[in-house]
């Protein structure tokens, strides 16, 4: 019987999730024995036309990492969806938007302005910018169109499973492959991680959640055994799904939510506003004012990996848009 076919692809990504799969070290050989990898740009030389030539649902398992922020990324997501039986949103970017979704605080015009004109290190006297179509003496060149708004994979195509994390821990990848090999994948729509929060998984000592002020991580030296939040460091653990092994907290850095919201929480950032404001001690106007000054970048901290997945999804666009595109069309 032929081996199952697997594809991996990266959209608006950094390559970390692909390297992550390689980080399974010698177990990658087990994976290679188990499946035929038919598309994986970081490691294999298959082209888009190879995927286009495959029969629909010919790919058994597709691990898709990266957020969607261009026409090309949306097209390849739809192409791979057509060709794949099971689509996995792999990594925080595909699941929730990830770091690239911080671009939802700005828009394409502002990005182009900064990148191609304003940036101090630029040497672009002619003011060249990328164009959708460029005429050259030999013919025409095309580039995909960038969206103003970064999207998650499920906002573009149907997704069966989610593996969160930036990047997902190696043991979760192996768990996914193992479950797949044994035909024991959980119900469609499942997140392959813990169903508890990071706080539940964290083994720091938790006493009483009452803090008199917030500190930025560089302002104090923290006790490595005590809960970071109780010491005044803003930690997103209370509103983040567990299963990551608390890698950041073990390195003495507060959680920033890369596993997304835990079960039952629809909007990670709103939950964090609620949780942090609740444990802050102080009721006078002065206390509230102080608290607001101490939380320096609420939206960027509480939605660090989840802007595209939030209820508001993006900062209000200032200009009126000529054409409105629905990414699922």
């Amino acid at each position, binding site marked *: 019987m032929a081996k199952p076919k697997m594809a991996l692809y*990266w959209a*608006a*990504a*950094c*390559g*970390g*999730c*692909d*390297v*992550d799969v390689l980080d399974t070290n010698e177990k990658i050989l087990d994976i290679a024995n188990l499946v035929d990898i038919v598309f994986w*740009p*970081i*490691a*294999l*030389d*298959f*082209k*888009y*036309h190879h995927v286009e030539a495959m029969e629909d649902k010919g790919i058994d398992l597709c691990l898709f990492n990266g957020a969607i*922020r*261009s026409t*090309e*990324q949306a097209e390849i997501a739809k192409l791979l969806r057509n060709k794949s039986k099971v689509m996995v949103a792999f990594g925080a970017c595909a699941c929730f938007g*990830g*770091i*690239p979704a*911080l*671009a939802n*605080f*700005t828009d394409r015009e*502002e*990005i182009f302005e*900064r*990148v191609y004109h304003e*940036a101090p290190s630029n040497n672009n006297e002619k003011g060249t910018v*990328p164009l959708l179509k460029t005429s*050259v*003496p*030999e*013919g025409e*060149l095309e*580039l*995909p169109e*960038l969206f103003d708004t970064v999207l998650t994979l499920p906002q573009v195509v149907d997704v069966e499973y989610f593996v969160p994390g*930036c*990047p997902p821990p190696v043991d979760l990848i192996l768990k996914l492959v193992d479950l797949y090999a044994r035909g024991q994948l959980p119900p469609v729509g499942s997140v392959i991680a813990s169903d508890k929060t990071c706080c539940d998984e964290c083994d720091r000592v938790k006493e009483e959640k009452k803090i008199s002020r917030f500190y*930025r*991580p*560089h302002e104090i030296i923290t006790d490595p055994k005590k809960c970071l939040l109780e010491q005044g460091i803003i930690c997103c653990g209370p509103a983040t799904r567990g299963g990551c092994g608390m890698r950041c907290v073990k390195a003495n*850095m507060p959680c*920033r939510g890369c596993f997304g919201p835990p079960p039952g929480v629809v909007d990670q950032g709103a939950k964090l506003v609620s949780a942090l404001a609740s444990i802050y001690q102080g009721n006078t106007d002065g206390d509230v004012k102080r608290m607001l000054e101490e939380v*320096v*970048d609420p939206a*960027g*901290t509480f939605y*660090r990996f989840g802007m595209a997945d939030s209820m508001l999804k993006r900062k209000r666009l200032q200009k009126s848009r000529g054409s409105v595109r629905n990414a699922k069309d």
Partner: protein
Amino acid sequence: MPKISVNPITRLEGHGKIEIFLDGDGNVANTYLQIPELRGFEKFCEGRPVEELPRIVPRICGV
């Protein structure tokens, strides 16, 4: 002119495509490398606390 597209380029980090234009004899007339992605770190890092940058910018490249 006839054109050969190498899309995507592979076995490196990042996205790219190469367009090779051939002349009448089938020789390469010109070749163009295009990078069809832009995430905008240069812009969206603005407004973030400086101590958070070391946790944001490594996501430019995870390799």
